[in-house]
């Protein structure tokens, strides 16, 4: 069966650490939906993707993997961390008590907290072509939105080339 579902994948070696993904994500989650409007409207917001610095100095985007058997969803005692049928997980802020169980359980350390609640990618940021704001904003294509098959092919290609040499 042909895979249709696309995921956010990372080519870490392409990340310049420009934080454009963070800003684009935060902007997409404002009421205005665009940066000029958000600033003029005095809105604030959080990016739901983070650039982390590794001990060797390289930059890595840390993002939600929307896991199939999502530990964050399983860990939530309030049924606030939920999962849609398409396996996208999201936080229902109304029911969240800010206990950080999800933060503790995320195997990637992705989940962080704002002052009150966890910040969680919810994919409520897709543009006309269904591409997430963070991916759209990435100037170097360190972030890509692909099916797993496409991503693995892209990863495989350089190795295959080297092996054939």
């Amino acid at each position: 069966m042909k895979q249709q579902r696309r995921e956010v994948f990372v080519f870490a070696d392409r990340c310049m650490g420009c934080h454009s993904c963070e800003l684009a994500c935060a902007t997409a989650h404002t009421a205005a939906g665009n940066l000029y409007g958000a600033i003029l409207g005095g809105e604030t917001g959080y990016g739901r993707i983070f650039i982390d610095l590794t001990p060797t100095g390289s930059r890595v985007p840390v993002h939600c993997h929307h896991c199939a058997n999502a530990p964050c969803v399983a860990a939530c005692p309030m049924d606030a961390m939920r999962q849609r049928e398409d396996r996208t997980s999201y936080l229902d802020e109304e029911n969240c008590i800010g206990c950080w169980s999800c933060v503790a359980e995320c195997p990637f350390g992705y989940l962080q907290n704002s002052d009150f609640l966890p910040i969680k990618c919810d994919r409520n940021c897709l543009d006309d072509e269904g591409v997430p704001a963070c991916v759209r904003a990435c100037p170097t294509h360190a972030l890509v939105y692909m099916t797993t098959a496409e991503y693995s092919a892209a990863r495989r290609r350089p190795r295959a080339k080297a092996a054939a040499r």
Partner: protein
Amino acid sequence: MTKPCAVSLDPAVCEMVEKAKRLGVETVWDRYQAMLPQCGFGDTGLCCRHCLQGPCRIDPLGNGPKLGICGATADVFVARGLDRAIAAGTASHSGHARHLAHTLKLVAEGKAPDYSIKDPAKLRAVAQRLGVATEGRDDREIARDVCRIALADFAEQETGVAWANTTLTKKRVEHLNELNAMPKGIDYEISDIMHRTSYGVDADPVSLLVAGMRCAIGDLAGSYMGTDISDILFGTPVPVVTEANMGVLKADAVNVAVHGHNPVLSDIIVTVAQEMQDEARAAGASGINVVGICCTGNEVLMRHGIPPCTHSVSQEMAMLTGALDAMVVDYQCVMPSVATVAECMGTLLVTTTDMAKIPGATHVAFKEETAGEDARKILRMAIENFTKRKGKPVDIPQYKEKVVAGFSVEAIIAALSKLDAEDPLKPLIDNIVAGNIRGVVLFAGCNNVKIQQDKGFVTICRRLLKENVLVIATGCGAGALMRHGFMDPANVDELCGDGLKAVLYAIGEANGLGGPLPPTIHIGSCVDNSRAVRLATALADRLGVDVDKLPVVASAAEAVAEKAVSIGTYAVTIGLPVHVGVMLPVLGGPTVTKVLTDKVKDLTGGYFIVELEPDKAAEKILAAIDERRKGLGLSVPGGDQA
């Protein structure tokens, strides 16, 4: 036939964009798409690279870093960024002026035989304004003194900058002195900006903005000097009739586009081309057809009626016709991409100045001392290139509009004198008072790839003309308007409100034109925004008020260059509301944004109106005009009198 496309309102451009797609030639619009979305930090002015601890970014949405590593606030970031743009714009205009001053100096010394003082009357008028004795003196002696003052204006002087001190209203000079906003020297202020915006210097946003205004007045001085010396060397423009848009290219001629800014190059190319028509014919061409692109095109349009081919963002499109044999450039607004397009389309790209070289171009060092010879060399290369193209098919979009241009302040005063020889400004003032002219708007600046080309200018202008606003235009703003028929007198009836129509007819008929002036008045290139300042200053002096009281507004509806930032800032500093149709990279600094769009009004009377939607911009411009009409006790449409 005339169908606009997503990137431009100009059908000629749209045809060429289609051709570029077919041929796989990359254009400015392709590169723009590849650049999207643009970085939000840069867009809002919140990225600082002024030291090696950076780059620093401040989060405009408030949850990331709030200060740079050095502790600079968002307002300091954006004020420093704005200041550096002003300094760069000032360096550009004044560099252009210095180039002219050096040329005039060579003429005065008899070292540049291909140039001459074409307008001795203007030389004398400028000299008198500067306090140079003219009685019984030879033109060259006077020119030498004018050059000495011009070149001295760049350095720090106790007396300040002559081209600023003598060109504004007395009140404005006094007021700007009180604000510490009069420049000490043009280069001095550029240098001052670079110093104070460097690591760990000025951290007060207001202090930074005042320095920016001071530098911007230096920009005005440089621009004014540029206009003055251009007029002295090449003649003060008088009305000319020509045509504009790519339809002015001729398949059977050696088509040479002059592109860039300084008439030091383009005027000589035009003159020498006339002398070389036979040589072109001998090569099988119908002649040499010089056309203009961007502001140097405006310079030779204003003085020689040379037809403009296209402007600003669509400069690559002139080559896409396949009919352009050479593009000869000096500096400013010449996209490096033209070298690639030239290679694809067989155009010869010639760079001429040491400071503006482009890989892929042929460089011919153009020297004032050997200008005629250098121009002949360049044109011979163009003819040679034509012989390679001769007989091959070309795609010249068959669009062109009639253009009546050439309105220097001198020409405007001369035209008005036909109505009142004693007091030429009186008819203009009477009509403003009576409401036949609601106000005056200057369109200036560029075409920005972020806006469907010309849409900002055309939409706003259409509305303003209907509302009886007298429109003057410079630079590629003028270019946009002329390519859409806004400079053809035949369109006055369709475009203008009744009051304005009557005025344009009255002036036209008094001058024996047998019809009206064109709907919009072309006053020149981007340095020639100084002509607008001169006109506004003359009006203010005649009324006994300062410029900040006049119902005059400027609009850079599609601004691109740093030069547009410095022009906008000097216009605000002398007291004018200035509309900008693209976002200035200051939005990330809330205090600076508030100052520029509001508080600065208390200081100078001018302010920025940032409005990206043309319809709304037109309303805001009209509101700014009406506010000033009320301030003068004049009627406003709708009878809402103060």
